[in-house]
């Protein structure tokens, strides 16, 4: 039995990405986003009783916890998956470090039809770090029309080659996913070191 979110042996780590992605594809409902006003911001909210966000969080952590074993399936999904899976892949790859193929992230940032995928691909390019991508980012910026994606390109430029703090990845891998949504009125406030 493979327990998503629990301790992961080396053998289970190899199986975890497929299990996490299958759970996400089965339980995430994209149609549950509800429009919430069209003023200064175009905002969409999940319903208050939504469970999808916790499905997403568990998948995200399991994929990061599985480490290198997640890279290939996520790159494949980024290139060919449905939009919600491509967003999850783009969002997660930045947590998987220097072995992630930057060219695949650049391709997604340049040509994915969904701006959310492009935005997270740009974020992940910055998070992987270690390489001067200023020319590539300038090219992306020149071609990009979406203002949010353009803002995130600027953030990636600002950070230069500084990748994601390894402690952030370690904290996510070590976090106990059973603590999801445990902050309840009248109960103890979850604490963090």
């Amino acid at each position, binding site marked *: 039995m493979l327990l998503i979110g629990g301790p992961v042996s080396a053998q289970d780590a190899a199986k975890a990405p497929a299990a996490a992605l299958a759970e996400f594809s089965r339980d995430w409902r994209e149609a549950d986003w509800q429009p919430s006003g069209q003023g200064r911001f175009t*905002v969409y*909210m*999940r319903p208050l009783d939504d469970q999808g966000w916790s499905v997403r969080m568990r998948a995200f952590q399991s994929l990061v916890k599985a480490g290198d074993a997640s890279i290939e399936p996520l790159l494949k999904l980024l290139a060919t998956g449905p939009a919600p899976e491509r967003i999850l892949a783009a969002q997660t790859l930045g947590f998987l470090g220097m072995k992630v193929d930057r060219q695949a992230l650049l391709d997604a940032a340049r040509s994915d039809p969904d701006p959310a995928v492009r935005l997270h691909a740009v974020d992940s390019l910055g998070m992987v770090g270690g390489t001067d991508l200023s020319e590539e980012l300038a090219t992306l910026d020149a071609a990009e029309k979406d203002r949010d994606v353009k803002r995130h390109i600027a953030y990636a430029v600002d950070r230069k080659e500084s990748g994601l703090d390894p402690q952030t990845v370690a904290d996510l891998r070590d976090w106990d996913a059973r603590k999801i949504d445990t*902050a309840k009125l009248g109960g*103890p406030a979850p604490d963090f070191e």
Partner: protein
Amino acid sequence: MRGKLKSLEEAGAQLLGVDPHESWAARGLLKDSGLAADDVHFPLLSDPAQIVSATYGVAFQMRIHVEWSNRPATFVIDQQGIIRYVKRGTAFNDRPKPEEILDELRRLD
């Protein structure tokens, strides 16, 4: 904002913000809003791995344009570490007024 912060501090409270971005992006967002880091007079904690946000039940629940963020939410925690007030917003601007928070703080006395 500074005046409201002073009222919160006089009521014995400390305000903490949790932002689901890396500090690079958080500073950029402030800049895009016409603010600098020095303009924020309370600790703004960065939670890019979403572990605080998920533990408090607010991660991945709002999209502004195409960007994912946390559901706006407010928690009041008393000095014994017990959660005494929770407000989970149903829209971007669905947040308690400072006066409502101050009322809650007074009830803790």
